[in-house]
């Protein structure tokens, strides 16, 4: 008798019932907003990547193939002859040794300039924040002002100064100039970074009896890796890409890669070898490109860290 009662106990679930909200909210991918964002992003990246594509495919083609004029077409038989020539035997002005001497000159310029400028700027920034002295704010203001003056204005005086120092037309001269011109922006970078570190750490180290250099090397430097990476990227790419100081101060024997690239591309003799030009350009850009790829994450982090506090 009681059996019949259970028959009506469970209500059947109606199909098409509205799902009650529970758990994480569903995130559909194809919303108008996302489609717009992604299509804009794709367009912009194509815009930037297309020239690179043209350069790479052209460098892999032979000259007859290039003369057909299909600059967007893939190479019929990709070969690296142009790359080899660009590196070893393209004519850069009077000599025909390719870009390789320029590459090594650039290395010889970039490494010391980067190290010296970063070290001095780090000490500057640290001193400006933690060891304020009378006039330190004015000193900093003057230093920053320096970064607003166009380089060209100072070019001629600098030529005279380096000549008087007896180093004009040498590697030392370029290194000196790069170090000096890196100072404003790098000091600002380090100063802001050190300002963002807790002041109490510095106080604690002073109570512990540590002096200027000890606090710098044992307390501050180990905490400054991100900002050092940022400074490294800025300096390596900046100095590597520099043309003006290289061509003015280095002297013909020490022309950096950028200057030699210019000499290859702008040579007035013979037919322009587009494939060699393209290969040489990509070769020259390879170093900064690698630096960005390897350290992109650090770069963003460091810039953000350096920018927070003024």
């Amino acid at each position, binding site marked *: 008798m009681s059996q019949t009662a259970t028959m009506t106990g469970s209500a059947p679930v109606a199909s098409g019932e509205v799902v009650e909200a529970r758990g994480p909210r569903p995130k559909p991918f194809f919303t108008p907003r996302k489609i717009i964002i992604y299509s804009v992003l794709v367009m912009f990246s194509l815009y930037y990547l297309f020239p690179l594509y043209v350069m790479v495919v052209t460098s892999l083609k032979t000259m007859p193939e290039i003369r057909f004029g299909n600059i967007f077409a893939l190479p019929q038989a990709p070969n690296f002859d142009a790359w080899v020539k660009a590196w070893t035997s393209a004519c850069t002005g009077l000599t025909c040794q390719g870009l390789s001497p320029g590459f090594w000159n650039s290395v010889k310029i970039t490494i010391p300039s980067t190290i010296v400028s970063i070290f001095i700027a780090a000490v500057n920034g640290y001193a400006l924040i933690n060891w304020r002295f009378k006039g330190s704010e004015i000193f900093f203001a003057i230093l920053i002002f320096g970064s607003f003056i166009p380089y060209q204005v100072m070019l001629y005086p600098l030529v005279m100064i380096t000549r008087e120092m007896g180093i004009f037309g040498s590697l030392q001269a370029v290194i000196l100039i790069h170090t000096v011109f890196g100072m404003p922006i790098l000091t600002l970078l380090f100063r802001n970074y050190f300002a963002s570190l*807790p002041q*109490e*750490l510095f*106080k*604690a*180290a002073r*109570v*512990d*009896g540590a002096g200027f250099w000890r606090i710098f090397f*044992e307390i501050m430097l180990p905490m400054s890796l991100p900002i050092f990476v940022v400074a490294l990227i800025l300096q390596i790419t900046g100095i590597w890409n520099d043309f003006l100081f290289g061509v003015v101060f280095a002297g013909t024997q020490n022309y950096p890669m950028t200057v030699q690239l210019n000499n290859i591309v702008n040579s007035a003799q013979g037919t322009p070898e587009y494939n060699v030009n393209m290969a040489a350009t990509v070769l020259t850009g390879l170093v900064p490109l690698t630096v960005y790829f390897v350290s992109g994450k650090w770069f963003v982090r460091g810039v953000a860290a350096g920018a927070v506090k003024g």
Partner: protein
Amino acid sequence: MQHSVSIKDLSLNFGNVKVLEHLNLDIAQGEFIVLLGPSGCGKSTLLNCIAGLLDVSDGQIFIGGKNVTWLEPKDRGIGMVFQSYALYPQMTVERNLSFGLRVAGMPKDEIARRVARAAEILQIQPLLNRKPANLSGGQRQRVAIGRALVRDVDVFLFDEPLSNLDAKLRSDLRVEIKRLHQRLKNTMIYVTHDQIEALTLADRIAIMKNGVIQQLADPHTIYNKPTNLYVAGFIGSPSMNFIAGTVDGTTFTAADGTKIPVGAYDFAAAPAGSLKAVLGVRPEHIFLGEDADDVPYRTTAEIEIVEPMGSETLAWTKVAGIPVTFRCSSDIPLNVGDKVTIGFDIARGSLFNAETENRL
């Protein structure tokens, strides 16, 4: 008598801003002094001056009888503990503790001995090989205290050491600092804005406002006989009830005409004639119901708000038209709208000159 720390006529200006003005403070050997005040009152600045982290504009600082006004922090015989702990993030706890000793070029076995002793006192032996990032807040603050401990100094400076901790840890570490003081018997100068910390830890409290010490006394005196209106209002939670009016002989007349006999009050100097005054009564010095039978002033009041706090109940009412809070046992059932009899314990109250704000 030789003072452990002695501050003579200390002034400090940042440009035109006077942070400390002609400040004098003598601290006895082994004394626990708390500098208490709201933010910006100059208490941390004073501590930084004592530590030697700030140059003073004028005046002198003596530690252990030696004039240290021009000495470097490390030569002053002080150890300091900071609010943010300020542990060196890239060093292990052991290296953090020993950093100062290594800087001083102390022999290795002596360093090891001191670190071991500090670790033992603070119960941090298992943490010695960890980095600060892998420690909890309480452990970090312990290490920070240890860093002051290994220096084997006479004077400990604490700059709001417990402010970054949660409530439970704060009360735990408070007891530990007190225990540490009883064991080491060092002079300790402790900066805080937390009056509970001040009242529980201090031998003497210096209450500061705008770079001036308002009152320097033991916690009992500070609490029961505040020297001026500012101290009276700053110390105590909930704060003291204030009723403005005039005092004439032994009668206090509130603004609305309510007369309160104050004959039981212990005047420092009885005012001559009529004087504008403020009567201050702490919430726990207001009695309820039968307890109020023996006090000189009684009135009937209506309960407006009841705040049960667990161990006690806080009730809001009005006396002489002014909101007044009082404490009572949480066992007494109180409801909004109840008419109750309350009485003021005038003998334990405070009277202030309304003009000078000083205690009468």
